[in-house]
């Protein structure tokens, strides 16, 4: 019995495939490392280490001088105001776009008739416009508007309005289509106008979802408006950019704490609002 079972050498049946995979991985990874200028040693260069050490050491204690706290409060309020105003404008932009694009309010789809191709064409064009509005990240829009209009919250509000207008428009249209569209259809078939069909046929069923998504987007807008500040669009981000450029760690850590607090509060508020609506 033990004669028959001579110890066969253990071989990995997939050895060749694994080796090929590894080789391809290295061949792909190498140019990436070169392209990304991957130098972990830079983390430990004495110059960089000194700067970072000094900066991090000054993080503690967070700055709490009265003037700075005043500035911080102003910047926080500005961030909230940018998010709220941006969402309000994007709502104004999104509603007509969504109404133009949604199939739930299409009269020509009900039956054969004139204007079917024309309506479909308009929808395709509006859909493309919304895709274009969404495709460029809000920070890029903010940077472009800062260059065009100058530093300040106006650029942030417009950037939010454009990007979130595209997003909200698309999602509103989808929400309206995904719900029960029969009431609206019945109204349209009975000859009602599109707006009446929207308000009496679609909105009652979809209102909660629409509102909840808008609130969620507001929460995202608070985060985005902090980030947009880094390119000069006002609010907490701009204050943070200034503190970092001056290597003022105490201020930077206070702003970071404020930022975390703000995001947490926006989370809580949006959850509470959505529960209220639910």
């Amino acid at each position, binding site marked *: 019995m033990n004669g028959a079972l001579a110890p066969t050498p253990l071989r990995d049946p997939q050895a060749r495939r694994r080796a090929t995979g590894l080789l391809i991985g290295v061949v792909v990874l190498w140019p990436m490392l070169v392209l990304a200028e991957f*130098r972990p040693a830079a*983390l430990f260069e004495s110059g960089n280490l000194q700067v970072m050490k000094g900066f991090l050491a000054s993080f503690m204690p967070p700055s709490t001088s009265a003037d700075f706290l005043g500035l911080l409060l102003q910047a926080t309020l500005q961030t909230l*105001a940018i998010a709220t105003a941006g969402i*309000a404008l994007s709502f104004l932009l999104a509603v007509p776009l969504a109404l133009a694009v949604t199939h739930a309010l299409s009269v020509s789809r009900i039956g054969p008739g004139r204007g079917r191709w024309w309506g479909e064409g308009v929808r395709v064009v509006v859909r493309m416009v919304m895709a274009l509005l969404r495709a460029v990240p809000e920070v890029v829009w903010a940077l472009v508007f800062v260059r065009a209009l100058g530093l300040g919250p*106006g650029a942030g*509000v417009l950037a939010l309005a454009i990007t979130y207008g595209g997003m909200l428009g698309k999602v509103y249209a989808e929400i309206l289509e995904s719900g029960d569209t029969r009431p609206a259809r019945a109204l349209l078939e009975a000859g009602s106008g599109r707006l009446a069909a929207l308000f009496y046929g679609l909105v009652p069923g979809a209102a909660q979802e629409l509102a909840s998504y808008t609130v969620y987007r507001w929460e995202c807008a608070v985060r985005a408006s902090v*980030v947009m500040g*880094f390119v000069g669009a006002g609010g907490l981000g701009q204050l943070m950019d200034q503190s970092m450029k001056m290597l003022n760690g105490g201020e930077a850590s206070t702003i970071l704490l404020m930022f975390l607090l703000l995001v947490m509060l926006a989370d809580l508020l949006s959850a509470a609002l959505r529960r209220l609506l639910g």
Partner: protein
Amino acid sequence: MNPADVSTAERARAAGPCLTCAGVSLLLVGSVVASFVYLGIDFAAMLSGESMRLMGKFIAEFFHPDLSAPFVAKAAWATLQTLAVSALGTLLAVAAGGVLALPASGRFGSALRQAARLLLNVLRSVPELVWAALMVLAVGLGPFAGVLALALHTTGVLGRLYAETLENAPPDPERALSDAGSSALPAFVYGSLPLIVPQCVAYALYRWEMNIRMAAVLGFVGAGGLGQMLYFHLSIFQQAQAATVLLAMLLLVFVVDILSSRFRRGLAPAYA
């Protein structure tokens, strides 16, 4: 409790004005108005003839992108750099997130679990752009700062997702192996790992897709790639060059969108 009472009460409530709705609407309208007042944006000046003309000129200049061969080559190079930054950042985050997910899923006791979760939460709640600004200080200007920034933020995200996946995986295969006398590491590698790998790969690909978009933007604080080019050319008012970079960004985003929606069909659960 008589059914008729309930229905009368309900009828009365339904017929009366909805106080909560009125209050919330009033609050919403009030906060929107307050926001516009607080910001004090001068929309009249913004929409005046003079500034509209300037804006129009500014926008018109974007419609003449610089398509000369050397500049397109430069933009293509920056696009490749953006891709490399996003891929490396995600790869590092997969490794670090995987390592942190083990304690965060409660494998080494609850003290380590809390500590790992706290670390992951902090990493996650600082946005990429803020990490990038910090990393530019730590390693100097250049794409490497972008790699580190993406890696730090994504570690927080992936670590948490991986920890949850690990917690949700059925423990039986690993238990069977260790009951049969296997030591802890092989039991994990052959018992639990094969169960969670597909999900983890799906999460990593999804984050990579988001990171490609993010990497294009990180350059604004000096972390290389397309963003740095855009920032540079917009700063010196070269709209033609900036338009080319914007086109490259759009192209990148669209291509990634198309590829990922192709890919996504097979990986549906990760997006639920």
